[in-house]
């Protein structure tokens, strides 16, 4: 077992644009690291560089203190679970799991002992003689994991292993993977585009955009202290609300009214004209269900609720608003970066299940101003970030840098995603 150090890793393809751009991430021994980002962010490429399936253009890849840039995959002693599992259809489950051991020339008795051990851990005993084609998605997934754990690899690598499973199974396998990793205590790097997996599985999470590392921190740090608009928008479901805001002293002017924010936050946002305020849905509430002590005029506003989705324990209320063009543009770009489609600017408010607000009501809504973030619309940086609790944030306007790469690339190759078609 070993730690993995990535130092200024760069990957450039033939077109000259960096798919991975100067990424440095330190994975400690036994740590569970998540690489997360929308499609095309370079997370899979980075993983494939760790395992050796992809050449490293520049930088150092150090595994267990040894530079492995020039080693073939088989010399790196890592094990990997592929997105489609990559089970060998012509081999039985037993032989699939045994495959790496056979290649290593282990004796039959050792192979048997290890395969049985792995199959017991993963509850595959009754399937050992079947072929992968006859297994369900979840079983295939477990076989792929069996093949990974059967040998004493330096680290586990997972490439979106749950994306081919249905929602329920995905939840179960997620817990299973977490449990297995805790038990084996092995260094793990896990690629996903699903922020739920990122939040629940990882000791730490590295968020990538267009090949540039945005923030590398624990899930809690990412959630509470996102480094920029991109991270803020990516982490959390439903996502953070972004509203145009003007700061005047310690009061913030939002489309629905003006609220007061703590002085230390206001301090960091002085001297800027138009800002973007970020408030998570759960940091709003129906003023009538909040402890009356906390409700003041300076922390509430009224708005006309458009649609209410009542889920029993909670409800989501939607409030449309108009945003000025410069904010609108930034938000649309952000939406695209997050693989979404921008339909309209609206506020999503999470209400307590006890709330009686109904569609069409003019509601009084309370906002938890302590949790509000203020972003610079030009760079996307979070002006109110608490740097001490935000993990590692690479300097130098990472979000803007990623956007620049993206624009250049899209400019050269119209359509972007079909660049190589």
């Amino acid at each position: 077992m070993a730690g993995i150090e990535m130092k200024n890793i760069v990957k450039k393809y033939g077109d000259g644009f960096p798919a991975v751009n100067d990424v440095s991430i330190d994975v400690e021994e036994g740590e569970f690291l998540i690489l997360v980002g929308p499609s095309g962010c370079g997370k899979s490429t980075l993983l494939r560089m760790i395992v050796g399936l992809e050449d490293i253009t520049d930088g150092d890849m150090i595994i267990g203190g040894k530079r492995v840039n020039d080693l073939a995959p088989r010399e790196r002693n890592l094990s990997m679970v592929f997105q489609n599992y990559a089970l060998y259809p012509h081999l039985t489950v037993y032989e699939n799991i045994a495959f790496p051991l056979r290649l290593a020339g282990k004796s039959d008795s050792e192979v048997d002992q290890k395969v049985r051990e792995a199959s017991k851990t993963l509850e595959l005993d009754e399937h050992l003689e079947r072929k992968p084609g006859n297994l369900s998605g979840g079983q295939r997934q477990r076989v792929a994991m069996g093949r990974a754990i059967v040998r004493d690899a330096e680290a586990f690598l997972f490439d979106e292993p749950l994306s081919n499973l249905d929602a329920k199974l995905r939840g179960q396998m997620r817990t299973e993977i977490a449990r297995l990793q805790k038990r084996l205590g092995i260094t793990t790097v896990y690629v996903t585009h699903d922020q739920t997996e990122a939040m629940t599985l990882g000791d730490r999470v590295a968020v990538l955009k267009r090949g540039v590392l945005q923030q590398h921190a624990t899930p809690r740090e990412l959630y509470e202290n996102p480094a920029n608009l991109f991270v803020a928008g990516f982490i959390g479901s439903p996502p953070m609300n972004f509203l145009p805001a003007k700061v005047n002293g310690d009061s913030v002017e939002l489309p629905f009214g003006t609220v007061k924010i703590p002085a230390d936050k206001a301090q960091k946002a002085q001297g800027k004209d138009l800002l973007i305020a970020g408030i998570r849905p759960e940091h709003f509430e129906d003023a009538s269900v909040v402890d009356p002590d906390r409700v003041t005029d300076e922390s509430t506003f009224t708005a006309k609720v458009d649609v209410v989705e009542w889920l029993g324990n909670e409800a989501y209320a939607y409030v449309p608003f108009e945003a000025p063009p410069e904010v609108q543009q930034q938000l649309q770009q952000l939406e695209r970066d997050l693989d979404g489609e921008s339909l309209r600017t609206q506020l999503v408010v999470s209400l307590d299940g006890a709330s009686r607000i109904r569609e069409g009501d003019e509601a009084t809504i309370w906002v938890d101003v302590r949790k509000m973030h203020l972003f610079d619309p030009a760079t996307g940086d979070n002006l109110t970030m608490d740097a001490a609790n935000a993990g590692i944030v690479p300097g130098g306007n990472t979000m803007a840098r990623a956007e620049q790469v993206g624009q250049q690339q899209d400019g050269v190759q119209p359509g972007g995603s079909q660049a190589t078609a």
Partner: protein
Amino acid sequence: MTHTTVAPDDKRDVRRADKAAASDRSKAENRLGMRLVAPAIFLMLLVTAFPMLRAIYLSVFNYSLTAPDDREFVGLSNYLTALTDSLFWETTLNTVFIMVVTVAIELVIGFAFAMVMHRVIFARGVIRTSILIPYGIITVVSGFAWQFAFSNNNGFVNAWLPFVEDNFNWFGEYGSAMAAIMVSEIWKTTPFMSLLLLAGLAQVSEDMLEAAKVDGATWWQRLWKVILPNMRSAIMVAVLFRALDAYRIFDNIFVMTAGAQGTESISFLTYRQVIEQFQLGIGSALSVLLFLSVLLIAFLIVKIFRVDLAAARQEG
């Protein structure tokens, strides 16, 4: 097979890896790739490009194997001889005629067969096995079988066809002889056509057909507006391959009429000049013309029907 949906992200990563800059690995890959295809390229060129060049060279000589020492340079006069000879044009016309008729009939019958094979639930194996027999059988054997079948001495066709006299000699005149040749050709190659079309049919999704049904399309409308447009590329590839194949018709003519009654094809004419009469000079000129006409036909089919060759080369 395991599940093979790949997220767009991933596909892109992998595809882009193909285009990697000249790293050591991609250089090695390049070398390995070229080494692996080298034997195939060598062989294919040895038997085509090299003889073709030689044919071009020989075609400007008056050269006969019966008098090899009299070889003399004659420039383009072999071509001139061929192109001004009515025989050349007759055989070419014959060949084109055979090509158009056989491919058209094969397309219709082949499509009907494909529809049946696509829907049939019982005896699938038996039908597929049977359909492979004409495909696998030697063309010469097919030629014999049909020649004897049409024979007025020993055949059964005259007896079975109500409006034909029992002693009618099919090989006695141009029209009927051509018909016999085409029957043999169509019999042997329709199965191939139907298999290609079957593969195309399988790619038309059932959902789409059901949607069309719900939308109120009749069987005929579903055929013309849903099925055929969706298997366009399969049809075009099949037509291209079969047309070029039909243009090379030789075996059936050789066996069934030996070119009598004006049933010669361009391939047969070329063969006769080269192999039977040892006229390598004029024969080579005919070879070159034959090759050029195949290129022309391929070009016309690709242009007229806008065949997607990329699909044919699986570069999609």
